[in-house]
């Protein structure tokens, strides 16, 4: 996958790489669920349309991941696949695919409490996109 774990004492951080800005949002979402569960065990049985707003890429990233975390917790779903349809400076629209949590088949590796703004970075360098995000666990 296109991410590395950051060794943060209290929490968990990720460094994500992708070819474009949509990719960075998709990869960050996959990394989030890779931390929560075993992605290989999730089948695609449902899809969820997601639309969030914010000002700037950093706020949008937190809003996008927070929405996925919210759905995971309240609807008890696990996602493994993400497509971003549209992104601009103020909004993100896309779809997350996965299935309902099944205690018999799925594992929860780490419960993530929240997506933080701490040392949050999203940048483009030489045509590649990089993001750093720290989760509260």
């Amino acid at each position, binding site marked *: 996958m296109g991410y590395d774990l950051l060794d943060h004492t*209290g929490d*968990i951080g990720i460094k994500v790489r992708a070819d474009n800005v949509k990719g960075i949002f998709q990869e960050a979402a996959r990394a989030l669920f890779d931390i929560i569960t075993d992605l290989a065990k999730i089948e695609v049985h449902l899809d969820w349309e997601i639309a969030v707003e914010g000002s700037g890429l*950093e706020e949008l990233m937190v809003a996008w991941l927070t929405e996925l975390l919210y759905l995971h917790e309240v609807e008890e779903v696990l996602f493994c696949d993400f497509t971003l349809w549209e992104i601009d400076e103020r909004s993100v629209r896309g779809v997350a695919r996965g299935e309902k949590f099944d205690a018999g088949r799925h594992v*929860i590796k*780490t*419960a993530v*409490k929240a997506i*933080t*703004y*701490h040392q949050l970075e999203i940048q483009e360098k030489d045509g590649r996109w990089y993001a750093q995000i720290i989760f509260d666990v």
Partner: protein
Amino acid sequence: MAEQVSVQLKKIDAYRWLIPREGGMRTDGMVYADERLMGDIKNDQSLLQVRNVAFLPGIVGYSLAMPDIHWGYGFPIGGVAAFDEGEGIVSPGGVGYDINCGVRLMRSGLERKEIQAKIGGIVDALLVNIPSGVGSHRKDLKLNKEQQRKVLQKGAQWAVDQGYGQWKDLEHIEEKGRIPNADPDLVSPKALERGRAQLGTLGSGNHFVEVGYVAEVYDEGVARDLGLAKDQVTVIVHTGSRGLGHQVCDDSIRVMLQAAHKYGIELPDKQLCCAPLASKEGKEYLAAMACAANFAFANRQIITHWVRETFEQVLRMGPSTLKLDLIYDVCHNIAKMEVHKVDGKERRLCVHRKGATRAFPPHHPDVPADYQETGQPVLIPGDMGRCSYVLVGTQRAYEETFGSTCHGAGRVMSRHQAKKNAMGRAITQELEAKGIYVRAASQATIAEEIPEAYKDVSDVVDVVQGAGIGKKVVQLKPMGVIKG
């Protein structure tokens, strides 16, 4: 990572280190640690975070850090900062996502040897009766909207009203289990939804219920006043406001990012976003935070009731024999309006304690009547393999740290490192060989929470005692633990 800023440190005495004011800092930082703990502290970015907190407007006294300080987000974990009511700010990042995460301690009428052979049964039954881990909740506790509003307004008082525990429990909870001025209208539908099925659940990560015993008594007189004696069985509950609190924090941070911009507050880290205490945004955060704090008080109260029921079921004893009385319940992620003397003058301040515990001295009006002579009990849980401590608050803490002290051991290993370290080891059996029976909803939690992942809480408490910002009363050792 972000650019490394080097932080200057000046050793004041064996337990105090000053971070002198420079650049945008409005005050000095002060860290409580000895040489050894400082070695660990320097390895992460927590000192930089102490410095960053000192940038915030209206800060009064030092930007403080307790000896269990470690790298958080925005504020360090183990950070304490007070802000002037008129000129200061309130910051959701200074409270954290798990609003009113806290600890409570019960004593019992039991001795260690009476339950030694039955500890497995007790722990297994606790794991059944107290929902732990992701998505689990009890079918017999589901709230409608109106009930949920009452929980947010009344906290532990609501729980007792519903039959979870006794009225006298409330006397032994910080703020009597209810923070005033909680306004449920300021809690978003999303936060309510996340909290709906999570009242009366332990959660995962470092949250736990631990059955232990008094291993060591340091102050016979104070221990007697707290009703504690050697070999007596005790129970600790550690949990917070669950998804509801996380969402209140999330929602507030979004508001505060705008607010900080609007009020022209410069932030060295976005996670420190804040608003003036006197502003609409500041007041609304405090009223929403109070709701989450009350949810957490109710949560610990309900779990306490289930702990009592579990002991009754497994040991076949009545409440009058078990005597599972609440000693105290403390918050360690909270911001509160308090009156403190600063340079001889009384001022109303908003004291942020993020991974820090209130430690009020004897004769303070907010200390319960039966602890007026001893000072407020302070509960410091350690990791699941070593020990925990009961302390009392001191006059010195009141004068130096706005009546605050440490909250726990503090991690030294990231969760990832801990998992690597635990790989191939049978942690549950290792602990069982030491006489500690541990069960968790998820095996991954046990790996993340291995004792070596934490500082030795004894080192932390020794610094607190040495610096005079807390006084050791007893040491508790674990016999059985449930984890999320």
